[in-house]
């Protein structure tokens, strides 16, 4: 059985990235930064159409090349 340190990150839990050897203050700063960015992600997710796809970017980029 895998130990907690071997498990994948649980970003919203207390043991996020437990496998990384980080001092508490740096861990707290990293968590706070990720939480700040997460608020934006949640806001943007509400605006996104259900069918939004990661490949839309390449399509729009190439379409944007047209005069």
């Amino acid at each position: 059985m895998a130990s907690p340190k071997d498990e994948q990150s649980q970003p919203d839990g207390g043991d996020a990235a437990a496998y990384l050897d980080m001092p508490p203050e740096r861990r707290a700063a990293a968590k706070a930064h990720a939480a700040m960015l997460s608020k934006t992600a949640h806001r943007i997710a509400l605006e996104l159409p259900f069918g939004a796809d990661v490949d839309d970017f390449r399509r729009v980029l190439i379409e944007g090349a047209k005069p």
Partner: protein
Amino acid sequence: MTDLAALSARSLAKAIRDKKVSSVEATEAAIGRLKACHGLTNCVMSLEEEEALAAARATDAAIAKGSAMGPLAGVPLAHKDMYDRQGKIASWGAKLRSHRPATADSTAIARLKSAGALQIAALHLAEFAYGPTGHNYVLGHARNPWDPTRITGGSSAGTACAVAYGAIPAGLGSDTGGSLRLPAAACGVTSIKPTWGRVSRAGAMPLAPALDTVGVIARHVEDLALTLGILAGPDPRDPAATSVPVPDYVARLDDPVKGLKLGVDEAVIGEADPRVQKMVEEVAGILVKLGLTRTSCRFPDWQTLDHLVQLVQLPDASAAHTTFLRTRAGEYGPQVRARAEVGHFISSVDHLTALRARGSYLERTLRDTFKDADIAILPILADPLPTLAELDVSGGPQVQAAMGRVVKFTRPINYLGLPTLALPIPRGGGLPNGIQLVGRPYAEATLFAVGQAYQRVVPPEIARPLEG
């Protein structure tokens, strides 16, 4: 006697072709200047003197025989030390790296070689290209050739130093969050961050592949045009390298710029230090005098873009580094280690949300920001050129905020994938800085035409330490 240091790569190639100067003479001169530049700036990772001179002798022999040569035949260049070259190990600016020599050249290096260019050195970069200031806590910081107490910008620091000093006319860099534009601005030279996918990344060290862009730093805009024409185009080794046709950028350098619309987003520019705002206004004024028409434009909310690009970059970079971080973390420098850790705290859902939103944010930018503008002007650095000491935050708690301020105006553009030309401000005897011109996708030719017109008014300079 021609001052070889001041020549563009294009002019030097012509002089070599016309046998006015040999490739050996040009290479010896470049190596001499690069050694002097390194003494001042710490710009070199490895000097390849014998190899370069042998290649120069071969080029001179081929020219003497009238063999067909490429557009950069015999021209000495040097590049950021993160590109694979067959049989060599790139430093990546790091102690932690592969110890196996590359089995093939990166596509960018291979294309420059096919064009006849020589490589005299591999140049300084931030550790793993993950730093915007020129600090490198494991292999030594780079210092600015205009004032060695100041930052060079990063991560393509060595290329910018060597180009600014006149050691080489041009060299490769890369840009994930500003790494071509920041050193160009800090060292007073030009750069092109092409449209994402315009140049193959095959064989280039990955930082955050969704954003990584291969590009060039040069003193002369015409050299950006020449080299991008060589580098651009599809590549079976990089599926992101698109088949959008590559124009003849050099032929279009003199395209008319009169009537082009210059977008100015005063709200975004207003977030820079007032002295930087003044610099942007000065350059905008020059462009208007050249015939561009000033118009207002509005980017999507800048802070949102800045958050979205971090949601892409941080996990992307952390994923690349996860094995090293879990097994050999102590071999990282403190700043890269602290930055690479953060991505592990971002959820995959947030990361994917930022990637899924990327198309709609680009669509919105093209529809709104570029509705009435052909190009847009923005600062590069938010502040007048900082000192190395001011930004020596190492891996401390202020690292995200301090680095965030440095890349404030550059990394959101990577999220949009748009091409960006960096131009130096008129220095007026003071420290260098720069602005960026942002174009529509694949509109590099338009950017070059504007840059070429600008350099007729604000000519390229060679960097030497300022008095006092």
